[in-house]
């Protein structure tokens, strides 16, 4: 007897425990296999680019860090560096080292949050409890340095806003020792778990030949064996003086991207140890710039980029000679991954793999729609 099967449309929607953030995917299902997918964003749209046009730079810098919620520091660094490029300001060595330290700590905390999300999507609940505890210890250090756990507002055009507290570098060293002792535990329970390997190998395979041309960035490229990283190719701050490697893995699937991130945690710890050793003890943390109501931004435009935990994060900024910014456009790594890549990857996959693939690509909705 032939069964008449037709396509059913469901919303893998905004209220769902299996999505990373507040977005929805419209799926066409045939049984349990997906035949078509369409992404919907816009649930978090606040109109940042219009808000910034009405504000001077010190008013804009307080809201710029809220564009990307899990990792706010690349936004502040991009904003500060774009204004320094336009106005021709040079910052001191000590400020560069402090900014590098803050960016690497933010990358570590974002990778810990990823581990909790990726393991939760398969059903391994223990790792979420451990990794979010370890991330909280990093947030305690942030609170001591900048005053806030999640949103720091610390990096300003011209340098950073406050000095390092006494004994801060010693406490950071102790925290890195603690994290290094915990890493074999995560290996045992998560990365070498046969359940995870059976779920992850062969799922979400990216086409390697189109990857460079289509504009994919971050771990999607490094999981295909292509070694690209903004810190190595287009260096900024003090990354030319530091010694670190770019991990790659062949395989193009969810397992390869997880292995790349596992190695990046170790590389971040290595970079932080070098920064602690090489931190200069004297130097001004902030250059002298005019007051914000008299600081005229020249009529010019520029493009800056940093490497966040998910890929290349870029800002385009244009000034017009007054104290307000004419245009600031944000381009996060999830814009291309969330639309061009995700809608093609999900075809012919099972419904239960949607959360796994979304976590593996690292899709963060606030940076898609600002």
């Amino acid at each position, binding site marked *: 007897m032939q069964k008449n099967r037709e396509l059913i449309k469901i919303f893998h929607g905004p209220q769902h425990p299996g999505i990373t953030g507040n977005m929805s995917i419209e799926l066409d299902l045939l049984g349990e296999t997906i035949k078509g997918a369409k992404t919907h964003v816009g649930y978090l*749209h606040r109109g940042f680019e219009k808000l910034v046009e009405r504000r001077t730079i010190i008013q804009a810098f307080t809201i710029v860090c809220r564009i990307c919620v899990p990792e706010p520091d690349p936004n502040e660094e991009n904003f500060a560096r774009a204004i320094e490029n336009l106005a021709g300001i040079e910052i001191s060595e000590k400020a560069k080292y402090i900014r590098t330290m803050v960016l690497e700590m933010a990358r570590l905390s974002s990778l810990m949050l990823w581990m909790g999300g990726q393991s939760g999507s398969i059903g391994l609940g223990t790792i979420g409890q451990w990794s979010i505890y370890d991330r909280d210890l990093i947030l305690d250090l942030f609170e001591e340095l900048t005053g806030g756990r999640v949103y720091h507002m610390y990096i300003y055009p011209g340098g950073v806003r406050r000095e390092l507290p006494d004994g801060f570098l010693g406490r950071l060293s102790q925290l890195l020792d603690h994290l290094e002792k915990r890493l074999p535990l995560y290996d045992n329970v998560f990365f070498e778990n046969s359940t995870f390997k059976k779920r992850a190998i062969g799922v979400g395979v990216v086409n390697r030949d189109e990857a*460079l041309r*289509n504009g994919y960035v971050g771990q999607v490229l490094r999981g295909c064996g292509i070694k690209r990283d903004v810190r190595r190719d*287009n260096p900024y701050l003090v990354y030319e003086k530091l010694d670190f490697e770019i991990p790659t893995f062949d395989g193009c699937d969810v397992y390869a991207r997880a292995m790349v991130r596992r190695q990046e945690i170790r590389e971040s710890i290595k970079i932080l140890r070098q920064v602690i050793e090489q931190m200069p003890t004297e130097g001004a943390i902030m250059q002298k710039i005019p007051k914000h109501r008299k600081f005229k931004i020249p009529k010019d435009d520029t493009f800056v980029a940093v490497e966040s935990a998910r890929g290349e994060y870029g800002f385009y900024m244009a000034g017009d000679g007054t104290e307000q910014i004419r*245009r600031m456009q944000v381009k996060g790594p999830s814009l291309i991954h969330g639309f061009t890549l995700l809608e093609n990857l999900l075809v012919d996959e099972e419904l239960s793999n949607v959360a796994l693939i979304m976590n593996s690509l690292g899709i963060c909705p606030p940076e898609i729609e600002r």
Partner: protein
Amino acid sequence: MIKILKKHYEIEEKGERLFKIYIKKEDLLKTIDFISLSSNFMTLSQISCADWIEDEIFTLNYILTTEKRDKNLMVETNIPRIESKLPTLLNIFPQAEVMERDLHEMYGIDFIGNHTLYDFALEDWKEIPPLRREFDTLKYVNEQFDFRAGREDNKDVKAEIKRRRAEAKRLKNAKK
């Protein structure tokens, strides 16, 4: 690779790894096709748009990067603000589809050949495209939404500080 481009276009250098060329809007498709095939700048990274209302133009910047991702090239064109139309780059770069949809919703630019220009981030929007300079957000917010009562006696911060300092000075002089 820069030498190939220098023969055909005038390149402005904005820093160590950032270059810029200016072209007319009719040559757009031809130029980008030529650059992406003959030189190393093979990926489209971003399409950004700025609104210069005093000159009545939109300035579009197509930002391309190399295969090794170490240099960026900005290709700039100007289009008029009323009835802005441009050909689409969908056939050369598939990621241009989403970026053009975003610009269409925010500025009202029409990309000829792109059939997916529906809503990106807004729903049931009936006013003019919001990122144009003539759209006044403060007026729109005051008409649509109500704020909570309690800030009616809001004072200007600078005037208040001046008044308090003058008051303290006067008291100090009176004590002497």
